[in-house]
């Protein structure tokens, strides 16, 4: 146990890095994914096509390849992210946005067509009927699938370890080399770090699900 106490600052920093990776890229993915979902249901064919292309591209590309491209690939077009952390955030957000979009789109499709018709009949334009009538109802039905996306994202942050971000998984690599005799403890600490992020989210998701449910 003293081993854990000695390395507490390291573990704490690694945990905070993983947490902020997940939170920051989660927020970005939610915003981008919402925009993409709006594009996918918009009346403008060009926007629909663009969003569909984006989703198929990122949904079908391995996350590690996205990381590779953003870390090394974009140097060829004279681009570089200001930090490795931001590279990881960008890769996670771009990738996860495709899944957020699809989860939301399924929610939008689950909102009865009459709701949007009533909104349009009142004189709301496309953006207004989407933001005030359709999306609020869609978000409620997609809490469970969005919860899955969030938990997958929290675990996907571990790929950043391969790209020199000092997160929990990077800590596992580092301590398993320097403290091989304490490997079991290191594993416990790292897994506990991920659980601290994902388990409360599962609880929050189930609470949200109950709170936001709408009676029809």
């Amino acid at each position, binding site marked *: 146990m003293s081993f854990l106490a000695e390395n507490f600052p390291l573990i704490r920093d690694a945990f905070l890095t993983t947490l902020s990776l997940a939170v920051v890229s989660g927020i970005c993915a939610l915003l981008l994914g919402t925009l993409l979902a709006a594009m996918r249901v918009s009346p403008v064919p060009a926007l629909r096509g663009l969003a569909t292309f984006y989703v198929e591209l990122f949904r079908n590309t391995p996350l590690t390849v996205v990381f590779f491209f953003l870390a090394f690939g974009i140097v060829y077009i004279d681009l570089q992210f200001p930090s490795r952390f931001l590279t990881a955030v960008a890769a996670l957000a771009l990738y996860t946005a495709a899944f957020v979009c699809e989860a939301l789109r399924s929610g939008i499709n689950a909102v009865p067509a009459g*709701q949007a018709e009533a909104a349009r*009949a*009142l*004189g*709301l*334009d496309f953006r207004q009927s989407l933001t*005030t009538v359709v999306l609020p109802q869609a978000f409620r039905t997609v809490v469970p699938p969005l919860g899955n996306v969030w938990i997958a994202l929290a675990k996907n942050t571990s790929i950043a370890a391969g790209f020199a971000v000092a997160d929990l998984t990077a800590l596992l690599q580092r301590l398993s080399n320097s403290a091989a005799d304490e490997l079991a403890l290191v594993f416990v600490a790292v897994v506990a770090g991920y659980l601290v992020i994902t388990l409360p989210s599962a609880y929050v998701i189930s609470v949200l699900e109950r709170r936001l449910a*709408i009676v*029809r």
Partner: protein
Amino acid sequence: MTSRPNGEPLVRLSGVNKWFGELHVLQDIDLDIARGEVVVVIGPSGSGKSTLCRTINRLEPIEKGEITIDGERLPEEGKQLARLRADVGMVFQSFNLFAHKTILENVTLGPIKVRKQSKADAEKRARELLERVGVTAQADKYPAQLSGGQQQRVAIARALAMDPKVMLFDEPTSALDPEMINEVLDVMTSLAREGMTMVVVTHEMGFARRAANRVVFMDGGRIVETAEPETFFTNPQSPRAQDFLSKILNH
């Protein structure tokens, strides 16, 4: 009977044609609706009467012809269409109240978002309208907590809150339990008496007799006959209307 309609037509459909794929659902529809006029559209199912009603605010686009409201041609899309729709109230068969908003919010949404009224003004007016349709006590409930008849009356209040020039009713009582039909028809009848311009697609012949200035009978995507209610119900001219009436008026 309401006061006599007068002046330029408020809604004018000329040469309107619409297809659903191969199906020619509206064929050369010409129809003028005067200010203050109440037009009841009846006909067998599949005759195109609901589609006709839904073309007036372009929930259904048309392929050929022209629709004008208050002299203004119905725009194809975008902001202009939204602005014009704000002047056309619509009541649906399935109510379509916003499920995630309270009754009061349902009625204030349009005035606040589209008419840019203050929340206080919109709420004051909404409460007056809810009182008028008799659902004041339910203002803070959600739509699913109300009966069908109450929901439909709220839907009427929601449409009225926009101060529309014309109200469209697309089979407003068809989804209701029999004992709730009258409470909705009563609200509609009083609207008609106050001079609201109305287009009503319905199977309620009693309402047509009581409140309509004109009955439009449709079959197979065409307007087959147009007449004053008494004339239509007692002495229909076309064989198709005679046949239709003989089937529904016998019981």
